[in-house]
């Protein structure tokens, strides 16, 4: 019986891991270009989930379709936030920049709490409960779609970074800030774009998980922590590493939930985090910027 | 009496060999110059001597005891101090407080540290700047501050890393005079410098580093005429 349970957990966790990878990918991109650890990443995801909720509840827009609205909207939102809050402080000390994003996170999370209060809300379109069985494991359709959607988005992003001028500029700025400036790249614009892309990533991720998650002001916090773990695991600034790391953490978390009683599964994620930070700070796959 | 014995140290970073079987002896009270083209590995040698890097191979003995693997503060405690190529002052502390940090290397007592720091500041000529926050000091003052901080630790050997870079001729003269005063106090000096006339004038002996290896060693005028040294700096003579 445990074998079935473990398989089930593995499937569920793996699928969620795809989304983790997307969320972490956005965080990693922001770190690569702006060199800041964006504490407000989860909060932006939370806002996007609320947006998805309102679009669904008030206007009947299907969560997946709403991505067409929330994606660009949050991209713009991200650029705006970067321009107003982060860019003016780009020369501040590292820990101050971290505190800045922490302040932003506190502000956004509690704004949501004040506006919409703490009640859990759910987005449940008709297919929310759909599932099928695949080799003794139950596969929930929304999870499958979420994972597929996340992977598609990640691949699109990967292609964008490789093939477009803006994408190349982003990679240039990540690897060699001074060289990039000397090559005439509009650094300010790229920084804003990078943050915007990060925000768009979590917006998409938020819409993808809405059908099987809950929506509340604190929902971003758990994704925040996981995103940090994944990014450290995959290597800070390593976009592809983040994706792979997402699957690993998704699996670890889910298996942990099966094997450990109560909510001790969270220990697995934190322990992984601490261990990687201490012993493999450049990430499991290297290519990260270390400590 | 031999103060520092560097016994064929090597430092590899991945596939790059930055320093290759480097040898050096510094005796008490000596002034030795370390020169070489950019990227020759001079600062890496300083990092190795002061404990910021661990050599991939070879040994470093200071006052007869191996210091390989020792932490920088331990090496400083033993009597080896250094400055950095890019000055690293404690910007939010005053000049006096900066130097006090170094003085604490030899005492636990705050009053004693303060007295010692004040004396060292006077010695380097920054006495009137003692209560100025380091961030408000000019580059030249910061360089002297860094030397003061090193001196306050009570070293027997002081490593100076391009202290004259970015200074105008008058400031360079001030530093040369200061180095002579330090030497007169019996402190040995190992100096990395690009200002040739300064290092030629100050050094009793010069070691030339190129691609991580010693290519020449000897008195200044001999080294200056050495064809290998000329080639290293200027490229091959046709």
């Amino acid at each position: 019986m445990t074998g079935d349970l473990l398989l089930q957990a593995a499937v569920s966790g793996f699928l969620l891991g795809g989304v983790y990878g997307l969320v972490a990918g956005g965080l990693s991109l922001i770190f690569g270009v702006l060199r800041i650890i964006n504490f407000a990443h989860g909060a932006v995801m939370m806002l996007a989930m609320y947006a998805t909720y309102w679009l669904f509840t008030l206007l009947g827009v299907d969560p997946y379709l709403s991505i067409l609205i929330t994606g660009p909207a949050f991209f713009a939102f991200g650029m705006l936030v970067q321009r107003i809050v982060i860019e003016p402080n780009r020369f501040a000390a590292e820990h101050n920049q971290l505190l800045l994003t922490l302040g932003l996170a506190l502000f956004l999370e509690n704004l949501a709490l004040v506006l919409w209060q703490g009640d859990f809300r759910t987005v449940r379109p008709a297919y929310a409960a759909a599932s099928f069985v695949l080799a003794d494991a139950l596969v929930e359709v929304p999870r499958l779609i979420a994972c597929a959607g996340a992977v598609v988005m990640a691949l699109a992003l990967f292609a964008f970074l490789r093939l477009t001028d803006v994408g190349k500029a982003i990679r240039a700025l990540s690897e060699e800030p001074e060289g990039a400036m000397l090559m005439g790249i509009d650094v300010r614009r790229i920084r804003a774009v990078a943050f915007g892309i990060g925000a768009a990533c979590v917006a998409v991720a938020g819409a993808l998980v809405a059908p099987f998650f809950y929506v509340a002001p604190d929902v971003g916090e758990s994704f925040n922590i996981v995103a940090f773990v994944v990014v450290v695991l995959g290597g800070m600034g390593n976009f592809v590493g983040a994706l792979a790391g997402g699957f690993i953490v998704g699996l670890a978390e889910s298996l942990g939930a099966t094997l450990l009683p109560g909510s001790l599964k969270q220990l697995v994620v934190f322990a992984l985090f601490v261990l990687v930070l201490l012993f493999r700070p450049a990430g499991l796959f290297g290519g990260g910027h270390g400590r | 009496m031999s103060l520092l014995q560097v016994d064929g140290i090597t430092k590899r970073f991945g596939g790059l060999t930055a320093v290759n079987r480097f040898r050096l002896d510094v005796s008490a009270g000596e002034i030795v110059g370390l020169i070489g083209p950019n990227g020759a590995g001079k600062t890496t040698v300083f990092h190795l001597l002061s404990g910021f890097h661990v050599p991939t191979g070879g040994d470093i003995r200071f006052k007869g005891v191996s210091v390989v693997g020792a932490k920088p503060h331990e090496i400083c405690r033993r009597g080896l101090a250094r400055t950095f190529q890019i000055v690293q002052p404690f910007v939010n502390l005053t000049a006096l407080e900066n130097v006090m940090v170094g003085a604490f290397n030899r005492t636990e007592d705050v009053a004693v540290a303060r007295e010692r720091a004040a004396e060292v500041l006077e010695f380097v000529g920054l006495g009137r700047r003692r209560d100025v926050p380091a961030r408000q000091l000019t580059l030249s003052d910061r360089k002297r501050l860094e030397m003061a901080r090193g001196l306050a630790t009570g070293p027997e050997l002081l490593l100076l890393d391009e202290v004259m870079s970015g200074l105008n001729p008058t400031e360079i003269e001030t530093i040369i005079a200061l180095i002579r005063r330090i030497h007169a106090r019996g402190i040995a000096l190992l100096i990395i410098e690009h200002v040739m006339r300064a290092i030629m004038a100050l050094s009793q002996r010069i070691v030339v580093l190129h691609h991580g290896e010693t290519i020449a060693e000897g008195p200044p005028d001999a080294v200056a005429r050495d064809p290998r040294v000329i080639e290293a700096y200027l490229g091959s003579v046709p």
Partner: protein
Amino acid sequence: MAADAGAGLVLALLVVVPPFLPPYFLEILISMMLFGYLGAAWNILGGYAGQFSFGHAAYFGIGAYTSTLLFLRLGITPWLGMVAGGALAAAFGLFAGYLSFRYGLRGPYFSLVTLAFAEMLRVVAVNSKAVGASLGLVIPTRTPAPGDFVFAGKLPYYYVILAMAVGAVWITRRLETSKLGYSLRAIRENEDAAEAAGVDALGMKLRAMALSSFLTALGGTFYAQYFAYIDPTITFGPAVSIQGMLQAIVGGAGTALGPLLGSFVLTPISELSRAAIRGRAGVDVMLYGLVLMLVISFLPHGLMGALPRRPRRPQP
């Protein structure tokens, strides 16, 4: 210095006026003192050593649970339990600190690791029946027993936390003029340069961690005795960590009076906002977030940095 004279006056008022204040204001003052105290404790590691811990709740929680459990299960007075909690917290701090510093974690990575440690303790507490799990622990305080840190009315609690806050400021002052203080500030400014100047960075940071975590734990015991109820979220949750950190940063990290000044400003903001918008949880923290962003952007040295400074006299 002008700030000192002002502080002295404020202290006098803080001692003399409270007996005449209505309970509501006394409550606010107690909160103010507690947060200022926690800020001062955090400040030793954060402001002076420059190591920004995001997980000081770990020590707060250890303090609160240790003294409470010793009291409830073994009848040991919280006055002693406080010290035990402090010692345990310091031990955990040394453990977490050693791991982090030994493996070279600095800046944001250190912050994240401390957050992880605090969260791990929270999860363990939530899942431990022995410490009451999510339901937490209730401290019976019906009959006043000063020997057991149980008082009638709020006033005695106020004086206790006032004494603790003043003590924390005094300790910070003493730290400033000690070798440890100079070493920590050097480490904060530039750890490598400090090492090169003979400062044992690891040893000094651990000392700061031990002191900081010990003091924070004492605050946890106070909280437990005053509010008479603790649970994993209140004690180990991020809210406590952030509260402590915020007072110090807004007031001025790395200054002795900063945390208390920060608390004098933030606590009224919190109270007023909650009174103005009743029934909507989160207004105060939302403002905290805004204040934090504004302070970082416009007053990076905190409120103390904005005060006019006379040219510095040599230290006594």
